[in-house]
């Protein structure tokens, strides 16, 4: 029993950067759910936190854009944003587990990139801030390209999840996993502020009660059209679902928060 905790949650920067702009009831539900996740994580005493995450030009540009990049460092720094209202910190890494996962993926047909130096932006930093506020649990970041096409297909991400899940179940360390991003949002675009509630709810329904193999059937075009450029981040959730096929997913909160311009979801997973 090596995966001890798992969750998926949105990382809308407004959650910390402009908390007060949101209706209090909505903000309380999202932040309250993050606090619930923290309590659940604490109770499982994890040795390490795998963050299945994304980034927004903090580390990578178009001169070299990795499809999947695992951090292999002893520590990371973040957040890059001055305005996030999360203090800049040094976060410990687990280079040994990073290297093990990298080897396992290469042997299993996934040619991940790796980096020995990564900065964390709000995508990784915001969930860590809530889940491990003392920032003492080592983090292994896995960055998916959901920023600029072509991106890994949802199907490919789901399969990567299966490969990671298999490796982590054999791991002697107690591993917590967080998938971060989504749900529907169109950040910085002409449609900024749009939220597709039916899309978000259908995605959560599939995750919680439906046939999860449907998650691998999403297409890039459908996500672009229905969930926005920011919606492509659901690939991290799909990766996590691939890793934990039998775990039950429970929605702790879903709020379409217009001032944060994001359909915000917080989901906890539990072992059957």
């Amino acid at each position, binding site marked *: 029993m090596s995966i001890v905790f798992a969750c998926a949650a949105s990382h809308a920067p407004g959650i910390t950067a402009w908390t007060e702009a949101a209706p209090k009831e909505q903000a309380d539900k999202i932040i309250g759910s993050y606090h619930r996740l923290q309590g659940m994580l604490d109770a499982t005493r994890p040795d390490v936190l795998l963050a299945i995450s994304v980034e927004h*030009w903090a580390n990578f540009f*178009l001169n070299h854009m990795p499809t999947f990049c695992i951090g292999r460092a002893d520590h990371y720094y973040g957040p890059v944003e001055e305005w996030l209202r999360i203090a800049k910190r040094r976060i410990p890494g687990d280079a040994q587990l990073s290297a093990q996962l990298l080897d396992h993926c290469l042997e299993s047909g996934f040619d991940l990139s790796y980096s020995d130096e990564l900065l964390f932006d709000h995508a990784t930093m915001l969930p860590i801030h809530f889940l491990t506020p003392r920032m003492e649990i080592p983090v292994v970041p896995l960055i998916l390209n959901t*920023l*600029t096409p072509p991106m890994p297909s949802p199907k490919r991400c789901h399969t990567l999840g299966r490969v990671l899940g298999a490796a982590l179940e054999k791991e002697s360390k107690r591993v917590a996993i967080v998938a971060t991003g989504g749900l529907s949002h169109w950040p*910085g675009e*002409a449609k*900024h*502020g749009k939220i597709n509630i039916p899309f978000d709810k259908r995605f959560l329904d599939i995750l919680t009660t439906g046939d999860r193999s449907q998650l691998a059937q999403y297409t890039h075009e459908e996500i672009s059209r229905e969930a926005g450029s920011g919606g492509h981040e659901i690939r991290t959730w799909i990766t996590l679902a691939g890793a934990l096929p039998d775990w039950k997913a429970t929605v702790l909160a879903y709020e379409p928060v217009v001032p944060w311009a994001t359909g915000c979801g917080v989901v906890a997973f539990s072992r059957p």
Partner: protein
Amino acid sequence: MSLYELQKLIYHVNRDETQRERYRHDPAAFISGYDLTEREASAALDLDIRTLYMLGVHSLLLRPFTLIHKVPNEDYAKALAGLD
């Protein structure tokens, strides 16, 4: 059209403090260091948000670039009104 060079310029200003200072000190000289069309260079120099967006600059490069110039949310939204 060289969207890559235009986005590279913006990425450098957004992410590198030294480059940002060079840009602030003399925007025209900084911009001339990139291989841009006249339209791209003018749009960058004039902070023509609408044109930069229509040229294809990624929204998560463009918005931080405009934040460096302290463009409020309302003005940014107005600049993109009616697009997409």
